[in-house]
């Protein structure tokens, strides 16, 4: 029941994008970066 409330394919996609994005930021910060957050 709780699984049905918490999970949807959209959330799974969003979580994958979140993990990839954070990993890219961590890697960029550790290995020289791209000049900071581009906002």
């Amino acid at each position, binding site marked *: 029941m709780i699984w049905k409330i*918490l999970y*949807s*394919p959209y959330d799974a*996609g969003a979580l994958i*994008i*979140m993990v990839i994005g*954070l990993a890219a930021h961590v890697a960029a910060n550790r290995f020289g970066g791209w000049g900071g957050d*581009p906002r």
Partner: protein
Amino acid sequence: MVGHAGQTGSVETYFVLAVRYFFGGHALVSGANHYLTIVPDIMPRDPAIAVRFMSVLIDTHLYDLVKVIEILCGLSLITGRFMPVALMMEMPVTIIVCYLSLFIAPTARSLYTGPREVILNLFLLSTYWGYLRPIILQDRPPLMPIWRDRLFARVEKPQ
């Protein structure tokens, strides 16, 4: 790695980034799925008024416009460009989704996802307080129409 609040690499920065990627990713996936149909679109099956509302949105193609806004907002949050305006564009969609989720077609999941959308959208907007403060508090008095901005003014050549 973990520095002071506001510094690159601080817990605060990564928390905001995580929310940004999650909210942006969700908007992009939801918007793109409407056109690519990887999984069936989430549609209310009852009550009748919710089904009617969605049918009208789809028949008038307003639903397509909503999904375009979601895609643009998602791309903006993921790429880190035009984020404050993207979050403001997304806010009406978020409010309508939340209203439908809470009051028109509530399910166990929608009672969680509706308010979540509003909280995440407002939280991300709040991280741009520096941009929003002049709009909300009106503490920057000069009223300047866009056409008077030096950005668009004709540059006069020196004599």
